[in-house]
């Protein structure tokens, strides 16, 4: 796999469970994000998408153990743990979270916290830092004079904008946004998505959008990676994923999503994801799959390229390849 800007190589994350045992939350994820690219990391709760994002930032809790590589511009920043992560966190790779409630300290003004971030990273001090804060807020559509306000005086959308401004303080090349619009109203969501779109376009920022919301990814991203039970089951352009999905989970996930002008009712996927505290034999989606066959319950499919820049982890693609005329 070529380097790209940021990639993971066979990333694994385990969590120690309080009553003993381990939860294998991320199971060998290899992702690549190119400069200026917009990649959606999609999946349902518990699939490991947020854990993957936190691993990229080196922000996993102490109960987690990590294996594999996180390669930023050719350097494995996971290799030296905190030592090699710290210089890049917020500087090259920054992150915004759902709701942005916890991004700010409630007893300090929004502006002073961005000034603090700038000073902490040696980007600017004193008057310069205050001027830069005004510029950062302006770049996300917040009037400069709002810097003197407290977080609770901001609406949900404004708070998310301010969190994005703070994440951009050190001019990172990658922004990870974890469910950035999930708690917001649809009109405010549209404003934030427009902002993220403009930031990618104007500053060449690469975006990793972590979300359960397929339509948001379909509209904003170039490519998407679909996660299920801790692993990537399909990745490709958003157009291919919608029009030519090569994994039943991707197809069923789109079919389960209501669309404004679609025909008929969305259809749910029966069953529930497997537990991740025990080893899975075979394909993790097999119990819920509408096209499972004999091989699926004991032979775990690997993510394989089936067309240029389109990969899926499903035995059906082997069947299709064998059946195709040579």
């Amino acid at each position, binding site marked *: 796999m070529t380097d790209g800007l940021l990639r993971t190589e066979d990333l694994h994350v385990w969590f120690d469970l309080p009553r003993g045992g381990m939860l294998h939350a991320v199971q060998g994820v290899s992702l690549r994000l190119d400069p200026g690219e917009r990649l959606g990391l999609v999946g*349902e709760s518990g699939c490991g998408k947020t854990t993957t994002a936190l691993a990229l930032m080196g922000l996993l809790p102490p109960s987690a153990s990590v294996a594999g590589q996180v390669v930023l511009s050719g350097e494995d920043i996971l290799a030296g743990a905190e030592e090699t992560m710290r210089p890049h966190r917020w500087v090259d790779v920054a992150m915004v979270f759902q709701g942005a409630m916890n991004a700010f300290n409630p007893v300090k003004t929004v502006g002073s916290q961005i000034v603090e971030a700038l000073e902490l990273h040696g980007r600017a001090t004193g008057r310069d830092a205050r001027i830069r804060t005004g510029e950062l807020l302006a770049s996300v559509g917040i009037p400069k004079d709002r810097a003197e306000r407290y977080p609770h005086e901001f609406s949900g959308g404004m708070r998310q904008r301010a969190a994005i401004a703070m994440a951009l303080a050190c001019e990172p090349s990658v922004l990870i946004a974890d469910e950035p619009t999930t708690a917001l109203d649809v009109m405010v969501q549209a404003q934030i998505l427009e902002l993220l779109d403009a930031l990618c376009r104007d500053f060449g920022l690469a975006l990793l959008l972590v979300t359960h919301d397929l339509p948001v990814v379909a509209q904003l991203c170039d490519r998407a990676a679909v996660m299920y039970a801790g692993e990537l089951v399909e990745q490709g352009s958003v157009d291919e994923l919608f029009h030519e999905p090569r994994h039943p989970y991707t197809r*069923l*996930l789109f079919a389960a999503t209501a669309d404004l002008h679609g025909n008929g009712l969305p259809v749910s996927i029966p069953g529930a994801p497997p537990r991740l505290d025990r080893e899975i034999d075979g394909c993790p989606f097999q119990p819920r799959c509408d096209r499972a066959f004999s091989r699926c319950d004991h032979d775990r499919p690997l993510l394989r390229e089936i067309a240029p820049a389109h990969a899926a982890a499903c035995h059906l693609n082997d069947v299709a390849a064998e059946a195709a005329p040579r």
Partner: protein
Amino acid sequence: MSSNGAGPLLDVEGLVVRYPVPRGLVGGLLRRPRRSVLAVDDVSFAVERGELLALVGESGCGKTTTAQTVLRLVAATAGRVTFAGQDVTELSARRLRPLRRRMQIIYQDPYESLDPRLTVRAAVEEPLLIHHLGGSRAERRERVREALERVELTPPDLFLERYPHELSGGQRQRVAIAAGLVLEPELLVADEPVSMLDVSVRAGVLKLLDDLRDGGLGILMITHDLSTAARFADRIAVMYLGRIVEIGPAAEIIENPQHPYTRALLSVVPRRDPRDRTRPQILTGEAPDAARIPSGCRFHPRCPLAIEDCRTHDPELRRPGSARTAGHEAACILA
């Protein structure tokens, strides 16, 4: 008036809900005028038996307050709520109780609405005990099983003795619905019933509501999700700052919206197909504040089409010139 008369199951007329805003110590000492929030301002609609009406709008538009007033969890300041021919707004608490049984609510968060210490059996049986219904212990158990079967938690034996933490989100929401259904209500108020659930199980819960509707239940669904409303509602009412600004058959509202707010709202709904890249018409301006409702048409400060008259003229709901179906109304002088 007969309780099973020919009128609609639920009839809301001219509903107004005003909340006082605390002045705070300084405001009180300075004798500043008392402010109030007009959360619901002259709202009228009806829900028929076997109909699902979706009340859509952004947070703060008054949709949840409207629903709570229907159930009289919030008192109406003015207007009337009639349920099965009886005026709910005027009833004493004692006379309200038998009506309460007939209208049930399910909430957004099945993680909070179920008591973690109660088994599924106890959670579904509890409403029967509260309302002194269901007869003997054996009869109650039978009704609990029936309710679980109706929400497709089958076989019931598999679920009866489980606790909420042993269930998935979709299963919990089904238990919450079963606890509402066990009283055999005629009206179900569903406040964002699937927004906390994973995509793969949402459709199943919505299909269940759809089936219950087909079985004659009237459903008032509160949602901010227009895609869900488009697929599952018979009619849609769009609220903005305490008013219904447009109402009509779901397909008509989605395909032929007449109010500029409805059009803007629909334009920003992300579509599933990447090829359907929409041109979102993003409204700017501050989020509307129900304590400061603009003069004239309350949408005019954010409306891309507003003309001079809109500042002074507060438009009423009426049938727009280009409406294609009966029952389509919009509150816009340009529609």
